[in-house]
C-alpha cells in the first residue's frame, strides 16, 4: 500500500501540469460550494443573532416577515403605524413585563434613525443574550441627544459631541430636506454588535416628533425653518404614532395566548410575531433559492470530479506500456486498479484541500467587509465540520470516479498480456 502510494504520487508529479489543472478545477468547485454554504449559514446566524430575549414584536398588520425585517433589520418600511394610546394599552397589559417602543422612517447620511426610549438600552438583546454596551458616552437625556452605532461612528468619523443633522425621510442624498435648524449632538457611541444596531442612529421618541415639526402635512411647511429650538422644546412632543414594539412577557408559557389576544385586538388592528418563528418563515422562503444554489454548486463539484476521471482516462493509453511493465515485475491487476484509484483520490483530496484553503483565505480577506456591509459573519471561526465532511465526500467521490478508468486499465492489463503493441 505504501509502495503504491509512492508510485501514485510520483506518477502524478510526472504529469503535474495536467494534474494541477484538474486539481484546480476541483479546488474551485469546492470553494464555490463551501462559499455558498458559509454565506448561507453566516446569514442565518447573523440574522438569528440580531435579536434575542424579545418574546414578541408588535406592529400594524402586515406580513410577519415584513414586520420582522423592518423592525429588527431595518429593511424595507412599515406600511402602517401603531397609535400611541394603543401602545400604552399594550405596555400596561398584565402578561407583558416590558415593552420597547420604536419609531423608524428617517435617516442620517444613509444610516437609519430610530426613535426609542430608555427601555431599549435596558431590554434589547442580541447574540446569546448580550445587552448593548457603550464604548463611549451615555444614553440620550436631552431632546437633541443622539446615540450612534459603532459603524456610524467609524464611517462618519463621529465622536462624542459631534453635531449632526437629522432629516426626514430616507436616502443618502438628503440635501434640501435636511433640518439645519434641528442640530443633534452625539452623546454616546455603542460598542460593535455585528447587528444592524451598529448602523443606526438612536434618538428619543420625542426627537422623532421634533424632526417632523413643520412636516405634518407630509410636505415641508415653508415656515418650518423659522421655528426655533426653544419653540420646539415648548411643544408637546409625545409621539402620535410609533412603528413597532418589542415586548417581553412575564411568563413564557402565555406567549401563544398573548399573541392571539393581540392579533384579535378589539380596537386598532395589531399584529404580534414571535421573532424565531418569523425568522423560520423567512428561511423557508429563502430555502428554495438556497437549495437551488447548493444544488448548482454540488453539480459544479461533480463536474470537477468528472474532470479527474477524464484526465486519468485520457492518460491511460499513453500509460499502457507502464501498466505492462508493472505487471511484468509482479504487480497484480489489483495493484493497477489500486494505483489509478489512488491517483484519482489524491487529486480529489488535494483539490478539496486547496478549495478549503481558498475559501478560508477569501473569508479572511473579505469577511470583515461582508460583516460591515451586511452584518453577516462568514463563519470566521476557521475550518469546521462542513469542511471536513466536504473533504471526505470529495475524496470518496474521486476514489469512486477513479474506479472507472482503473477498471478499464485492469481489464486491459488482463487482455494485453506482456506484449503491448505500440
Amino acid at each position, binding site marked *: 500500500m505504501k509502495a503504491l502510494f509512492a508510485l501514485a504520487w*510520483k506518477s502524478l*508529479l510526472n504529469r503535474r501540469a495536467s494534474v494541477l489543472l484538474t486539481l484546480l478545477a476541483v479546488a474551485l468547485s469546492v470553494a464555490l460550494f463551501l462559499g455558498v454554504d458559509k454565506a448561507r449559514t453566516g446569514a442565518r446566524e447573523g440574522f438569528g443573532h440580531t435579536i434575542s430575549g424579545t418574546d414578541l414584536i408588535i406592529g400594524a398588520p402586515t406580513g410577519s416577515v415584513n414586520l420582522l425585517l423592518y423592525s429588527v433589520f431595518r429593511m424595507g418600511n412599515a406600511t402602517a403605524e401603531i397609535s400611541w394610546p394603543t401602545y400604552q394599552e399594550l405596555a400596561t397589559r398584565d402578561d407583558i413585563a416590558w415593552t420597547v417602543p420604536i419609531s423608524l422612517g428617517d435617516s442620517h447620511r444613509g444610516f437609519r434613525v430610530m426613535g426609542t426610549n430608555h427601555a431599549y438600552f435596558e431590554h434589547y438583546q442580541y447574540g446569546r443574550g448580550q445587552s448593548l454596551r457603550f464604548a463611549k458616552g451615555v444614553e440620550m437625556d436631552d431632546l437633541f441627544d443622539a446615540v450612534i452605532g459603532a459603524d456610524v461612528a467609524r464611517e462618519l468619523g463621529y465622536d462624542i459631541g459631534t453635531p449632526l443633522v437629522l432629516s426626514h425621510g430616507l436616502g443618502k442624498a438628503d440635501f434640501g430636506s435636511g433640518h439645519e435648524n434641528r442640530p443633534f449632538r452625539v452623546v454616546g457611541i455603542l460598542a460593535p454588535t455585528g447587528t444592524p444596531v451598529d448602523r443606526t442612529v438612536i434618538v428619543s421618541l420625542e426627537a422623532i416628533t421634533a424632526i417632523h415639526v413643520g412636516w405634518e402635512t407630509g410636505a415641508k411647511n415653508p415656515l418650518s425653518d423659522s421655528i426655533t429650538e426653544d419653540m420646539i422644546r415648548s411643544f408637546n412632543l409625545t409621539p402620535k404614532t410609533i412603528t413597532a414594539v418589542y415586548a417581553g412577557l412575564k411568563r413564557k408559557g402565555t406567549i401563544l395566548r398573548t399573541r392571539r389576544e393581540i392579533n384579535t385586538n378589539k380596537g386598532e388592528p395589531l399584529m404580534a410575531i414571535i421573532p424565531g418563528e418569523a425568522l423560520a418563515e423567512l428561511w423557508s422562503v429563502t430555502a428554495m433559492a438556497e437549495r437551488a444554489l447548493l444544488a448548482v454548486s454540488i453539480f459544479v463539484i461533480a463536474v470537477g470530479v468528472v474532470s479527474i476521471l477524464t484526465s486519468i482516462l485520457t492518460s491511460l493509453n499513453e500509460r499502457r506500456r507502464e501498466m505492462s*511493465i508493472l505487471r511484468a*515485475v*509482479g504487480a*497484480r491487476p489489483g495493484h493497477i486498479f489500486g494505483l489509478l484509484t489512488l491517483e484519482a483520490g489524491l487529486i480529489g483530496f488535494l483539490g478539496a484541500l486547496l478549495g478549503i484553503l481558498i475559501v478560508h483565505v477569501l473569508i479572511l480577506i473579505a469577511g470583515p467587509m461582508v460583516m460591515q456591509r451586511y452584518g453577516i459573519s462568514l463563519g470566521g471561526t476557521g475550518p469546521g465540520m462542513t469542511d471536513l465532511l466536504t473533504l471526505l465526500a470529495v475524496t470518496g467521490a474521486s476514489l469512486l470516479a477513479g474506479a472507472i478508468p482503473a477498471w478499464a486499465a485492469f481489464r486491459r492489463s488482463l487482455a494485453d*498480456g*506482456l506484449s503491448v503493441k505500440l
Partner: protein
Amino acid sequence: MQPETAGTDAIRVDNLRFAWPGHPPVLDIERFTLHRGEKLFLRGPSGSGKSTLLGLIAGVLSPETGTVDVLGNDMATLSAAKRDRVRADHLGVIFQMFNLVPYLSVTGNVTLPLHFSPARRAKVGKDAEGEARRLLGRLGLTNETLLGRRVSDLSVGQQQRVAAARALMGGPDIVIADEPTSALDADARDRFIELLSEEAGRTGAALLFVSHDASLARLFDRAVDLSEINKAGVSA
C-alpha cells in the same frame, strides 16, 4: 509458500495450446523446456508467437490446454493471484523497448520488483539502493550523474541495461528477455548479451532469450526454433 521443486527444469511446457480470443491458435507445443541455470536462445520469425509464449510462461496469459510448469508451479492451473506471485518472486522480464517506468528514477526502476515480492526484498536485504547500484555497475552503468537522470533521457542501450539490472534484482530464478537488443547496434548488442549472461550466471538464473535474429544463437548454451516445435505454425 510455493511448492518447491527439486526438478532440473526451470520451465517445462507440455501439450500447450493457446489462441487469442477470436483468432486461430497461435501456439500448439508438445514439449519445451528450460533447464535451471541454462542460457537458452529461442528463435522465431515475427508473429510466430514468441511473445505470446513468454506471456504464458510469465503467467500473464493462461493456456487453453496443457501445462506450463515454472519451478514446479503449474501456471495453467494456479489461480491468477498465485501466478502473479510466482512471477513476482521468480521471474525477471526484459522487453524489446520502453522498459522503464517514466516517472521513476533509474534506481527506482531497478528496485521496483522488490515492492511486489517480499521474497526478493528479503534476499536483497536493507540496502536495496546499494544493490541496485552494484548491479548497474556490473552492467556498465557506473556514472553517478547518469543515475540521477530522467530515464527517458537515457540512450536506448542504457535503458536496456537498466532493464537488465531490474530483471536481475533480488536474484530471480529465471530471466526472460523478449528481443531486448533489436534496437541496439551490433556492438552494443553483443556487449549487452555478454553482460546479461555473465550476471545471470553469477546469480544462477536461467536465461530465456528471444529473438528473430538467428545469428545470436552462438552466444547461448542451446538454441530452439519456435517454428520447429510449434505445430500451430503461423504463416505471417
